[in-house]
């Protein structure tokens, strides 16, 4: 089965990527998977200078998922370009760089470095679920203005590279944010980032995360992702979508594609099974055989709603 998948201007080996922050830059996972068989790897978000991350505890398990507050611990874009990217290129991985920052200028600086330093980056995911220091620490992705500002500047810096802002589901109107990102020049959208959550140890009355609140991920959020992809695909039918959020099984991935995602990304499940993305790609091939499909594009938005 040929699983070659069109994602906007990109052609992927298969529609199943790994989500940012759940597979590092591929080195650790390479013990378990063949990077050149994966649909692509969205690397851990990188910032203009190294970020140390938050104190521990950084995670706690919750029903059908987990909360995390890691604080984008990463070694910075220079390290990515010098060490990780050449290695990924050698391994023939399809690389999505994920960029983050606390100001518009920080995003632009990372984007500039990627433009000048990088051969071998297929696309850039813009992680706008970061606190905006210039907007009272509100997340960029929670404001149409901030979203537009970041995405338009990053697009200016990366004219030839497709960019996929990753949107937060914690908003009143996802379509308004999506519209702001698309107006600003986004080539597609990543849907969705983690859902805000919190957990408390009742005996000590302390939050279970040192960061107090964190991002909920895992199967618990899958229906939220399906709904988000569905809404955006209905409102913006021609926009390429990377569906992500709680994928654990082939069925979970298929749901996101049927709702309108051209490709999907496995996140938290990589922690449990580092081969999940490859196994889900095989599962999609089986499904397509059973349903007499020959092109993954036949799955995208193939949801049937009566009436």
């Amino acid at each position, binding site marked *: 089965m040929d699983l070659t998948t069109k994602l906007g201007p990109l052609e992927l080996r298969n529609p199943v990527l790994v989500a940012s922050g759940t597979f590092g830059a591929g080195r650790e996972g390479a*013990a378990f998977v063949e990077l050149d068989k994966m649909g692509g790897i969205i690397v851990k978000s990188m910032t203009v200078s190294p970020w140390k*991350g938050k104190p521990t*505890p950084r995670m706690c398990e919750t029903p*059908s998922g*987990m909360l995390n507050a890691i604080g984008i611990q990463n070694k910075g874009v220079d390290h990515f370009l010098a060490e990780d990217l050449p290695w990924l290129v050698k391994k023939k991985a399809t690389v999505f760089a994920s960029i983050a920052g606390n100001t518009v200028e920080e995003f632009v600086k990372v984007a500039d470095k990627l433009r000048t330093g990088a051969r071998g980056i297929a696309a850039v995911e813009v992680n706008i679920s970061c606190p905006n220091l210039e907007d009272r620490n509100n997340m960029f992705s929670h404001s149409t203005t901030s979203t537009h500002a970041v995405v338009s500047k990053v697009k200016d810096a990366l004219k030839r590279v497709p960019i996929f802002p990753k949107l937060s589901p914690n908003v009143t109107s996802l379509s308004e944010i999506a519209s702001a990102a698309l107006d600003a020049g986004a080539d597609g959208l990543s849907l969705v980032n983690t859902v805000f959550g919190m957990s408390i140890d009742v005996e000590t009355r302390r939050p279970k995360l040192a960061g107090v609140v964190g991002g909920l991920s895992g199967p618990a959020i899958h229906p939220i992702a399906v709904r988000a992809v569905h809404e955006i695909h209905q409102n913006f039918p021609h926009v390429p979508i990377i569906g992500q959020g709680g994928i654990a099984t082939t069925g979970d991935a298929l749901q996101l594609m049927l709702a309108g995602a051209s490709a999907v990304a496995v996140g938290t499940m990589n922690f449990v099974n*580092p081969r999940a993305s490859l196994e889900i790609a095989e599962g999609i091939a089986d499904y397509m055989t059973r349903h007499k499909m020959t092109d993954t594009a036949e799955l995208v938005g193939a949801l049937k709603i009566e009436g």
Partner: protein
Amino acid sequence: MSMVLAHGEILGHKKYGEHYHSLTIVTPDIGERVRPGQFVSLRCGDNRASILRRPFSVYRVHKRGGWASTVEIVFDIRGPGTTHLSQLRGHAIVDLIGPSGRGFVLPKRRAHCLLVGGGIGAAPLFFLADELRNEGHRVDVILGARNSGLLLGAIEARRLASVCRTTTEDGSMGDTGRVTDVLVETMEKCDTEVVYACGPHPMLAAVSKICVEQKIPIQVAVEELMACGYGVCMTCVMPLRRPLKRDESPEDATVYARSCTEGPVFNGAQVVWNGAADLVTEDQAELTPVGAPMRHGGIEEPADEHAPPGN
């Protein structure tokens, strides 16, 4: 290559005393290569409510060749994952990743080694003791726990150690008190040249402090909450001190190192102990590889050297 994703067959389930369960798993790929202090991460069934793997340090290894080598893990029941594992019996198949992390570094020349374990945190020290003795090193042991029922391997430790001390907080076995109460005198009596410790953080912090004062090298195996166990999630980090380069600010002196790949064994003198992981709560504790501060009933202070459940 280091880690593998493997299926292992349960050879047997045992109980050690009232609290501790043991699973012996046939897993030749891991059993043949695992080193003391390394760990394995097990899936706990197909439970979609509690999805993460549970990490366990390796208690014992039997190298029986490419078909039959086994690893043994020891644990107590802390949540849904360990409950599931405690119910597994012979021939059940488990999904595991290992051998994971960096284990203990063994001395290059013959040395007097003191192994200090708190409760079930002692688990990896028995594998270590076997390897040290095989290489001709002297092994002395201090085991501590809140009470005798929570001591792991007290009889076994007497068999393999030249000097073996036990401490319990309630005096139900050995000296009344904590491992640190007998640490200095044991080090002096045994001419200790290196200390290996595993147990809850407050114990590791106290043991490290004493070893630094006595100028004795100290290696600790830490317990940190892990989501992945193979280096990608960045949740299990330990704050480590590092020397500052010129132009660096004091806050650069702390770096976060991943316990799963850069640990779980660290130089105890390098760890920034205050604040590290002492917020881990009991219901979270089964996500740690070698025992976390356990608060039985949830009303006691975060553990000292006692009753770390483990692995």
